[in-house]
């Protein structure tokens, strides 16, 4: 097992109280596995990804345990995490593209970042250039400003940068969401080849786009309102999901060729619950067409078959 997360609970402190964004999640990622993490906006995907790399000052560790390659990951200790961040576990944050400092040339920015890790930019420059070639970026991007690059170019730049030290785990947060289809395909395939070239050992690919995960992920984990709803090998989630939420999520994808004039597609009615004071029992209850009395109790996340776990009373 490359990554093992056990009972992780992370809340956000707010004046109104704690936002229970990550409320007890347990899962593992195998060596070489590309794990897809899907779910609606606000369900806690980024919180899970970020908590494995850098606690935001507003984040509050409640409980839980994270192991990477057999070592304890000291996630709650921001300083201790310095030894792991970027070298052992690296992230491509959501909106990384827009976070690039617009007034610094890309090469200069990389130099500064490497300096904080005591790495000499000129020494690693040939490797950077080799990887730029591999992702189809001209080497002269290093002398350009972020504003001069399009979204796809910036995204590939960030990918090269975050995997430069061959981390064990790469967390990619919504990195294909803002890209056009051909670039999206290229970036998604680049992720797969980073794994195949062993630039990274395993990966957590966060996206709400199930069809991208269907293309590249080995397993898909579906989150709902701060908890895991289902985790299974990709073909199982897509073809025979057991959690009603996974089923509705997959059914909301547009079939090719459907037109508004002929047939109106529908999303999932209703909204996810507020995580400030989430309801007890199954958090999907208010939107679930199958809900029954038992659902007032919280369904456990149970392994139905090897590698296939579900949290739903109807599925057990």
């Amino acid at each position, binding site marked *: 097992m490359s990554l093992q997360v056990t009972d992780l609970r992370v809340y956000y402190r707010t004046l109104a109280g704690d936002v229970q964004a990550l409320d007890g999640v347990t899962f593992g990622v195998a060596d070489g596995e590309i794990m897809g993490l899907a779910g609606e906006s606000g369900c806690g995907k980024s919180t899970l990804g970020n908590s494995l790399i850098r606690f935001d000052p507003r984040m509050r560790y409640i409980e839980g345990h994270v192991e990477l390659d057999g070592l304890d990951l000291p996630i709650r200790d921001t300083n201790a995490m310095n030894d792991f961040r970027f070298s052992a576990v690296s992230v491509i944050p*959501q909106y990384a593209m827009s976070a690039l400092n617009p007034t610094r040339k890309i090469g200069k920015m990389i130099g500064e970042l490497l300096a904080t890790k005591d790495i000499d930019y000129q020494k690693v420059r040939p490797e950077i250039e080799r990887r730029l070639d591999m992702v189809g970026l001209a080497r002269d991007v290093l002398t350009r400003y972020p504003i001069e690059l399009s979204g796809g170019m910036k995204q590939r730049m960030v990918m090269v940068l975050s995997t430069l030290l061959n981390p064990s785990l790469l967390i990619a947060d919504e990195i294909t969401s803002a*890209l056009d289809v051909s670039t999206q395909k290229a970036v998604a395939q680049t992720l797969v080849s980073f794994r195949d070239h062993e630039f990274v050992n395993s990966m957590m690919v966060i996206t709400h786009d199930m069809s991208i995960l269907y293309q590249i992920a080995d397993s898909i984990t579906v989150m709902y309102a701060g908890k895991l709803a289902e985790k299974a090998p990709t073909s199982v989630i897509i073809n025979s999901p057991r959690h009603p939420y996974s089923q509705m999520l997959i059914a909301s994808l547009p079939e090719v060729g459907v037109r508004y004039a002929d047939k109106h597609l529908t999303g999932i009615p209703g909204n996810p619950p507020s995580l400030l004071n989430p309801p007890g029992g199954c958090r999907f209850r208010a939107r679930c067409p199958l809900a029954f009395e038992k659902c007032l109790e919280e369904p456990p996340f149970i392994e139905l078959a090897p590698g296939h776990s579900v949290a739903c009373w109807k599925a057990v």
Partner: protein
Amino acid sequence: MLTLDAVSKSYKVGTFGGKELPAVQNVSFEVAPGEVVSLIGESGSGKTTVGKMILRLIGISGGQINLDGNDISAIKGHDLKAYYRKVQGVFQDPFSSFNPMFKADHVLGMMRDEYFAGISAADWTSKVEASLQSVSLNPGQVLNKYPHQLSGGQLQRLLIARALLLDIEILVADEIISMLDASTRIDVVNLLGDLKARGLGILFITHDLSLGNYISERTVILRQGRIVEMGATPGVFGRPLHPYTRMLIDSVPQIHQKWGQIEAGLDATTVWAPAATEPCLYHAAQPGSATTAAPAGLTGSGLVEVEDGHFVGCVQPNADGTCGGRPA
């Protein structure tokens, strides 16, 4: 009716702005009331540049943009403000549109100061609630929150709600659904459907080809700043004429069909180019004239009408825009 007539844009790049980068060249199309036009193209093809020119956020290097027959390419001051009452935009990156120091609904308050100076508090509140409702936002969930307390999807819907506060004719929607999850995307796209039924013209810049196909009347495909194909959406998707359009359609991730073998190599990321043997429909339709001579009704667009209302451009244009393709 919004009309772009041979619109071009060059950015000045390089240390002293010494080099010109032609981002958009010779782009002509229309957005009529009550229709959605999808503008599709890869990263850097110039889609946002087109949107920003329409919204007058950047200048126009060549050509003309008209709203209801009036040239808006150079209007200023009062006229520009009147134009913004009719034409509004929502852009792809919700975060850069918000100032982290202010509450997120500050963007709505700014609209009040700018366009609704005399409105009563009660009228304003019901206006805000109606526009939030129309983008499926619960006022209690989003009002009085700072941007970091809201998800990207919530922020994006808030920006659409802001545009809808005005009684606009044209909405430029640049990748507004790219940060939204699949189930919410459908709702927002259906919302665009409601808006077009109310007579709004929408330029829907998107990379989601399935949803572009779903919602739009017409589709414009942009490559390297030039239109390569445009026409009624069922024609463009059902009978694509340009090999680039076919490649885009093949790249769409589908749920029960894999892209095909994902190669260990990374050559998939190299820039698309037509096969040397690819025949050029433009050349075929303009025998003997390897130029950008315009079909009737289009000023120098470099397109040729292959079937009713379905246009295609040259497969391999030369740097000056002339046809470099081979006959079919």
